[in-house]
């Protein structure tokens, strides 16, 4: 009987008080206490709570793992993935160049070096921000974490890695030439795809004839590919587009060039960003 009455009382207060909003200076907690026992204790806000709402702390360390390891979840998950990627990379080289067991082992150790260095960098960032819960430091953390996230999402044992450098003194001349040819072909394929994709986006603003499109593809695909084939490859293509203004004048009409200006301007401003992320030296 007591429960029924308190339930009705609580329900009625909720339905009338909340829609009326400010008209009721209702202490919902007092009403709830009468109807139901209080089971949750509110935490006191942190003493150094900032005005942007970090009242209950913010675990930056956990966020570092989430950002770097992304869909792999934890460091262990990422390690498992990288182990597989290393095996696939060495199998790929072995397929092209017919490696001996000693050569495979040397390359495997070099790849382990890449992984060790990568996880050491992650740990260094964790160490630097250990215990931090200030949400205002998010930007700083993100700047540090982003290049690592990029490497996690691409092939860690590609161009610029210890494994690739080790291949220079592990493989003999013929093997090295074959391996470099295959890597160059892979890079050219990916770069050409990125060029075509950017052109499809540009065509939404500046439609081109077939002949113009083909000339644009040849113009951009023959520029030097980036050092890294990551998620900002489209910015690298824009950067190259911005350097080809003279050739654009010959291929495109003025209205098309005008419509393309935003891409060109964006490409011009990308140099620092691309250098910072390892796409150019």
């Amino acid at each position, binding site marked *: *009987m007591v429960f*029924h009455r308190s339930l*009705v009382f609580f*329900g009625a207060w909720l339905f009338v008080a909340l829609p009326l909003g400010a008209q009721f200076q209702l202490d919902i907690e007092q009403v709830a206490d009468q109807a139901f026992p209080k089971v949750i204790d509110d935490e006191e806000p942190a003493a150094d709570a900032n005005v942007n709402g970090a009242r209950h702390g913010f675990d930056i360390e956990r966020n570092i793992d989430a950002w770097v390891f992304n869909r792999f979840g934890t460091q262990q998950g990422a390690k498992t993935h990288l182990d597989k990627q290393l095996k696939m990379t060495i199998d790929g080289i072995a397929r092209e160049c017919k490696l001996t067991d000693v050569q495979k082992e040397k390359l495997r150790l070099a790849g382990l070096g890449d992984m060790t260095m990568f996880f050491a960098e992650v740990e260094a960032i964790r160490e630097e921000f250990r215990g931090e819960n200030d949400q205002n430091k998010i930007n700083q953390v993100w700047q540090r974490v982003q290049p690592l996230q990029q490497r996690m999402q691409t092939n860690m044992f590609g161009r610029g890695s210890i494994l690739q450098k080790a291949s220079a003194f592990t493989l003999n001349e013929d093997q090295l030439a074959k391996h470099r040819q295959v890597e160059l072909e892979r890079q050219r*394929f990916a770069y050409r795809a*990125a060029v075509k994709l950017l052109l499809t*986006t540009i065509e939404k*603003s500046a*439609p081109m004839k077939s002949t113009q499109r083909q000339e644009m593809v040849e113009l951009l695909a023959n520029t030097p590919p980036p050092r890294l084939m990551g998620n900002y490859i489209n910015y690298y293509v824009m950067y190259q587009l911005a350097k080809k203004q003279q050739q654009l004048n010959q291929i495109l009409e003025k209205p098309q060039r005008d419509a393309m200006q935003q891409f060109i301007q964006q490409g011009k401003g990308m140099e620092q960003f691309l250098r910072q992320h390892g796409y150019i030296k």
Partner: protein
Amino acid sequence: MMRSPRTYLTLTGWALMALWGPPSLPAMPPQAAVEEATVEEAAVEDDFFALDAVIEADQKQTAEDARKVAREKAAKGKAAKEQADQGAAAKAKAAKVGAAKEVRKAKPAAKGQAAVAKPKAKRAGALQAIFNVFQARPAVAAAPARALVDSSNVDTVDANTDEELDDVEKKLRPQGRAMLPQLRPQFDSICREELRFVHTVCNLKRSEFDAIARVARRTCRKALLQTVKVQVRMQQGWNGRNPPIYPNTQGMMEAALLKAVDDELSEARAASYRQEVLARQAFRREAGVESIVASLDRQLVMSPNQRADVLEPISEAWEDDWQRNVEMLVNGNNYMPRLPNEQIRKALSPEQRTVFSSIPQNATFFSGQPFGMAWVRGKPKAKKLEDELQFAAEEDP
């Protein structure tokens, strides 16, 4: 005197309203917008007085469930009795005696449990009903689940004339109308450049241009209104079904212009435009497929032969809607569209298959961005396109 919770609630509600007046509920949206809203949204807005119905429905459901359980028990008992009759007499007698003992033991416990369970179920049902409405979830039986369909069923603008489009624009929600000035330059730019392209390929006369431009502008406006509706839904959130998808503006323009060109121009000139559009579509497909393969290659480290083997089934399975996923793929989103997994896996080694299985694949309902990076900045063009172009003479064949 004991009354039911429903009675207490109703009396208290009426008493409080008599004292303070009716609760100031959020303003009811205009009729058209209510019709536009989903069943669930309408249910939430009008649901204050449906609480009685909720509790009644809950109690009915509880009673119905109890009757169902009793029927099932009776059926089971009958079957057990028949089984016992068919078995050996001694076994059946022993089973009966044993069962009778168990029942005698369990009866007091069951009685106590049942006594507690009934009111608990009643209270739990009513309380859940209160919190369901309080949390603005549908308090009536949910509408039958709709199959996940392309959002063109929800956000499509079903208008083919300027008057109908005016009507749709008037019925937009205020936040939608506020977006129009921001988005219109983008769509005007697309329309402008597509018309210029038609003129470049077909060398239009003024009269031909006017007819084709009417179609282009109407289609562009339709795409704009559809985009606005999607933006509004994205801002307000949706219920998980029919997620918002931006319209394929370029596809809509191409289709509309192809038809207009067929209607207005000679076969030869229309054919030259059609050839250009088909070439553009083929290029888009090529770019999309190669981008997907390149992204897979980064993760799977494929040989040149494997790349070719994987490229073919993806190219055959390509859908224009994948373009949205592909653009996001390049910007760091690892969500692939739904790929032809069986054919791809045939080309891969066991390790590659394991890694391939871990790559997330999304249905093509990913909303993406309306234009990828192709946003127009700056002021809309002051000069009309008609004033910029040089048209062929009307007398020309």
